[in-house]
Structure formats: structure tokens, C-alpha cells
């Protein structure tokens, strides 16, 4: 009987079963950053343990690094200390570290793929829930806690239970102005923020197959917002072409051998799944969140919900969300005023995200009173964007072009909301306080929708703002 990719990768990496019933899983690639690793290194030291496979762990700095001025020492003492701890620990252990100005620093889930460290058929872990991003290459990629970071450093393994697998097929062609971000928001809206708990998601279907690797990363990135610890897409020709020539990918005959091996991990035609759903691309519109979870999302032309239509705790949740967001029930989301616009993050901080917006904003201006920032996901993205002149296009339109980092996604660096500012954001979480102010409000959307909102000063339909019409059938 055929196997799905999750089963194939799992079986390949299981070391054995533990007394608890869990399995010991070998981790092929371990990525670390400055927030969730210092304590893990401390724990190793306390136990007198060293890093067993230093060549399988790679480190960078992303969460706490400022995006306006990265000169050292950083102004924030603790941020500086965290980078120093990581730098010292990686040097001592012989772990490769990509610090700022190394040419390879950036958001960890941008860095792994662009270097070709992320490859099909791997198990990949990082102390960060958006590790699911790497599943786009056909991997079991999942977020772990700091104690598990410790486990991987010490043993290159984790204790895990296998997940069930749900296949989510998205079929058809996406409408004009509808992006991978809208697909993932639509999936979370449909299945709920805990719909995926206990599952790995296999994203499949013609819509997914037509996506570039960067689009696939956007979809897989937000698996965890739907409760699924990991989400993946089967590797195919698009995957292999992306990997060809990447820094850490073998070349020549070795590359061809690797492709054959990678291809073998794809789900068999007769693979079975614990659950399957099918979604139509035609049903997906530009999607924005209105509330305080990523699942509280609607199409750009819809209205906020009516609490009277829901029961029990759900009613409370809707009321609490409307109150926090200072929105009325039953009101179009289009036209909601915004103060800040943020394009970046591990969800939408790659070259194609900035290219797509740059293609639209020439001649437009960010609305008066709106602070708009564009944050490349890595030094490589920054360099490539500058070579194409994208930074100049963004600046001419009134955006600040920043240095690479997680920036305003999560408020661990100086990029934060102030008071109850509303941010149109290409990031992945809109929970209360997420962007740095305990009254700050986040509206998640795609990069081009953020650009449209920045220009109008309010949540807007990018298709209208940029005159996007369906291509004439030829």
C-alpha cells in the first residue's frame, strides 16, 4: 500500500521506539536563533553535555535585531546579551552562525531555504512555531520548545508521537489579486484555529502545484495557525529547480542523484490519509482578519460577524474580538482605518513578495499619517531587492526600506505599535498585544493588500486600488 510523504520521512528518521510509547526521531536539520536557544545551551552546560552533531545545527539572529540600526553593541542591553550568548555558544560548539553583516543573516525560515539547507525528505526543527514553513520542500518541519532544542543539541533527536495526516486539496486557478497568503488564511478560516491539532497537513491540488516555492512557503508557514504543527507540499520539478545551484546543495551528478532521492519522498499515488478536504480556488478572495485570532478572517468584501448568530463561548469570543478591535458587528471591513503598514516576516518577506508589490505601487503614495515599512527577510533578499531597484520603488512610494529581521511581526525589537494603532500586516498572528502594544490592533493580509491599505489609509481591495482585472482569455 502506498505511503504519504509524512510516513516516508517519519519511517526514514525513526531511531527506535521509547518506553513511553513515543518514538525517537532523528533531526536532519536544526535551526536556532537568539530567543529560544540561550536557555538550551545553559541546560546543556548544567548537565555537562556537549553538542553531538554541530554540523547539523545552523544559527542566525532575527527576532530581537533592530531593522533601522544594527550596529553593535545594540542599544538594548539584553538584546545585545542574547546575541553574544548565541555567538559564544555556537563558537564553542563549532556550530555555523550567520550574524548580521555576514551576508547570510535573516529570518531563520528565510535563511534555511535560500541557502539550500532545507531539502526534501528531511526532518527539520527550530525553537519557533513557523518552522512549518520548510514543509514547502517536502519535509517534516516543526516548531519545538527550548527543552526540545536542548534535546536536539545533545542527541540530535526528539521524543515524538506521530501525527495523523490530513490532505487539503486546493483545486483550480486563483483569481487575479488572490495570493498564497489568501489561500492559507482561507484554509484556517475554514478549518478553524485548532482544526489541525494532531495532524500534519499535506497541501495538494492544482492550485498548490502551480505555486512557486516562495508561495508554497507562505502556505506552509501558517499551518501552525490552523493548529497543525507541520504542513508540507510534495517535492516536484518546481522544488528541484529552486534548489539547483543553491549554496549548500550538491552540484553536477550529485545533484541528479539527490533529485532522484528527493522525488522518492513524494506521496505515492495510492497513499492514504486520515482525512481529506477539497477547496476550490475560485471560492478564495483577498482575505483579511477582523478579530484576534488568525481564524477570525473574512473576504475583503464581507462584513464583520453578527454575535447574535453565534452561541455560547463563541458569542463571547466574537464580542470580545469586536470590542478589542473597536469594530462594529455586521459592518464592512473595507474602509477600516489603518495607522501602520508592515510588509515582511517569515510569511511574506521574500523577494517575490516585494517584487509583486513593487510591480504595483509605482506612481502611488502612502497616505498621509500612515507609517509604512518594508522589511526584507534576509540579507540575501535585501541584496537581490536592491539590485533590482525595488528598495527605491518602495521608498519613492513612501515606504521605509529596512534591514532584515522579524521586525514588527512580534514586538521583540524596537518595531512596535504604539497605543491602539491599527496595523495592516503581512505577518501571521493578530493576537492581542502581538505587535508590541497591549491595545495595538493587527489586521493580517497579503503584501499587495498591505500596499493597497497603505495607499488608501484604510483596508481596501487591492484589485480596485491597482486596477487589477482578469486576463482576457485568449
Amino acid at each position: 500500500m502506498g505511503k504519504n510523504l509524512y510516513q516516508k520521512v517519519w519511517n526514514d528518521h525513526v531511531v527506535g521506539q521509547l518506553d513511553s510509547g513515543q518514538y525517537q526521531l532523528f533531526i536532519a536539520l536544526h535551526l536556532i536563533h537568539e530567543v529560544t536557544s540561550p536557555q538550551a545551551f545553559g541546560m546543556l552546560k548544567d548537565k555537562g553535555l556537549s553538542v553531538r552533531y554541530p554540523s547539523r545545527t545552523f544559527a542566525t539572529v532575527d527576532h530581537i535585531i533592530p531593522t533601522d540600526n544594527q550596529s553593535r553593541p545594540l542599544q538594548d542591553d539584553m538584546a545585545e546579551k542574547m546575541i553574544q550568548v548565541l555567538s559564544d555558544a555556537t563558537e564553542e560548539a563549532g556550530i555555523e552562525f550567520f550574524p548580521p553583516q555576514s551576508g547570510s543573516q535573516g529570518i531563520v525560515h528565510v535563511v534555511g531555504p535560500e541557502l539550500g539547507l532545507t531539502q526534501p525528505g528531511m526532518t527539520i526543527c527550530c525553537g519557533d512555531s513557523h518552522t512549518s514553513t520548510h514543509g514547502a520542500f517536502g519535509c517534516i518541519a516543526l516548531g519545538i520548545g527550548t527543552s526540545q532544542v536542548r534535546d536536539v543539541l545533545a542527541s540530535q533527536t526528539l521524543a515524538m508521537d506521530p501525527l495523523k495526516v490530513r490532505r487539503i486539496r486546493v483545486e483550480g486557478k486563483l483569481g487575479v489579486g488572490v495570493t498564497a497568503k489568501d489561500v492559507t488564511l482561507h484554509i484556517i478560516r475554514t478549518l478553524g484555529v485548532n482544526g489541525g491539532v494532531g495532524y500534519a497537513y499535506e497541501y495538494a491540488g492544482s492550485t498548490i502545484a502551480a505555486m512557486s516555492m516562495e508561495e508554497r512557503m507562505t502556505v506552509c508557514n501558517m499551518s501552525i495557525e490552523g493548529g497543525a504543527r507541520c504542513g508540507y507540499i510534495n517535492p516536484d520539478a518546481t522544488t528541484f529547480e529552486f534548489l539547483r545551484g543553491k549554496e549548500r546543495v550538491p552540484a553536477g551528478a550529485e545533484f541528479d542523484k539527490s533529485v532522484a532521492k528527493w522525488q522518492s519522498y513524494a506521496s505515492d499515488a495510492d497513499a492514504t490519509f486520515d482525512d481529506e478536504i477539497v477547496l476550490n480556488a475560485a471560492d478564495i478572495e483577498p482575505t483579511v482578519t477582523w478579530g484576534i485570532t488568525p481564524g477570525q478572517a473574512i473576504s475583503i468584501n464581507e462584513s464583520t460577524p453578527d454575535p447574535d448568530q453565534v452561541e455560547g463561548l463563541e458569542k463571547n469570543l466574537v464580542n470580545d474580538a469586536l470590542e478589542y478591535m473597536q469594530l462594529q458587528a455586521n459592518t464592512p471591513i473595507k474602509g477600516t482605518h489603518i495607522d501602520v503598514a508592515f510588509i515582511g516576516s517569515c510569511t511574506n518577506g521574500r523577494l517575490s513578495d516585494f517584487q509583486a508589490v513593487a510591480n504595483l505601487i509605482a506612481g502611488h503614495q502612502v497616505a498621509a499619517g500612515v507609517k509604512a515599512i518594508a522589511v526584507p527577510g534576509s540579507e540575501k533578499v535585501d541584496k537581490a531587492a536592491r539590485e533590482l531597484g525595488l528598495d527605491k520603488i518602495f521608498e519613492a512610494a513612501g515606504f521605509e526600506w529596512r534591514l532584515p529581521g522579524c521586525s514588527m511581526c512580534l514586538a521583540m525589537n524596537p518595531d512596535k505599535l504604539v497605543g491602539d494603532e491599527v496595523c495592516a500586516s503581512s505577518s501571521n498572528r493578530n493576537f492581542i498585544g502581538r505587535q508590541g502594544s497591549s491595545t495595538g490592533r493587527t489586521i493580517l493580509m497579503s503584501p499587495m493588500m498591505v500596499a493597497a491599505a497603505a495607499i488608501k489609509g484604510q483596508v481596501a481591495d487591492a484589485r480596485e486600488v491597482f486596477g487589477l482585472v482578469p486576463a482576457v482569455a485568449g
Partner: protein
Amino acid sequence: MTGNSVSKINGKGVYVKGNDIDTDRIIPARFLKCVTFDELGPALFYDVRFDAKGQSLNHPLDAAEHAGAEILISDANFGCGSSREHAPQAIQKFGLKAVIADSFAEIFHGNCTTLGIPCVVMANQDRTKLAELIAADPDAELIIDIEALQVICANNIFTITMKTSAREALLSANYDPLDTLMRTLDKVDQTAQRLGYA
């Protein structure tokens, strides 16, 4: 053995109501700027307990009648969002020893288990009843019996469920897997070689 077997948790309960309480709410990001977990206790749920000036927002955790509570009760999808282990660390350092909810986010659940914090699943109507019992008598003692899969409070017995592997880990005192993982390093090396990483 990594610690003592966790088979019973006794203590007063406190209900923090709401579905989808995420780890940013449990421990806001600015408190993650640290290199140890030591200082996290007072920061638990900070932004829903204190306003910008540090004045109390009268959160249940700060109610006089809930002082010293050791069992946290909440609703669905508790601990969703970021994988930050800082969240269960803050819960533990605050003095809470177990969480009872309708359901738990996966990474949060795993982090709790590693720290020896039981994640206990109790049905909606039972949690509603439990919350009523606590409201009527905040000093009432809850007993979480992990072996028998029951919670007892004021002569009420509630059936609970737990993730099998987590329950096993807590009862056998092997909830921190590090020592277990370190016992098979020769097999790990074989796996690494087979996969081409050694």
C-alpha cells in the same frame, strides 16, 4: 528518572475564561528578552493583569480569593500560537502546577509535559460546573488524579482524559525525555550514517 512521579495534583483552582488563549497573552514577547527562565513568574498574563501604568485590571489570577491557587482552568485550544516554552515556564514559576481545559495546542502541551505540568482535558459542561463550584467556594480543594483520570472537587467527581503518552510520562517520572534520548546514542549514530549525515 528525571524527577518524581506526577500522579496527583492538589490545590485551589482559578478559572481564566476564553477560547484560544495564546502564548503571547500568557507571556508577552518583551518578557522573552532573557537568557534564563528565572524571572518569568510575575510576568504571567501580564498585559491582561496590569495596565500600561502597572495598575491591576482585576484579573482572576490577582483576586484575593484566588491567592495561592495551583490549578488553572481554561477553555478550548489553550496555549495556541507561538512555541515559546516561556509560556509554561511562566505558568510554573507563578505557582500553577496543572492546567484543565477543553483542549490544548500541541506545542504548548508538549512543553508543559516536559516540565511535569499535566494538561488535563475536561468536557465543557463539567468545566462549567467546576467553575461554578470554585466561584461558590474559592478555597475548595481540587484533586487531579492522573492515575484514575478523575478530578474531585467538593464531593463532585469529574471524568477527565489526557494524552496517553503524556500521562505515561508523568506517572513514570520520565516526563523529561533527555536522559532516555541519551541512552541510545549508538543507534542515533547508525541512523545518522544511514542518512548520510555522519
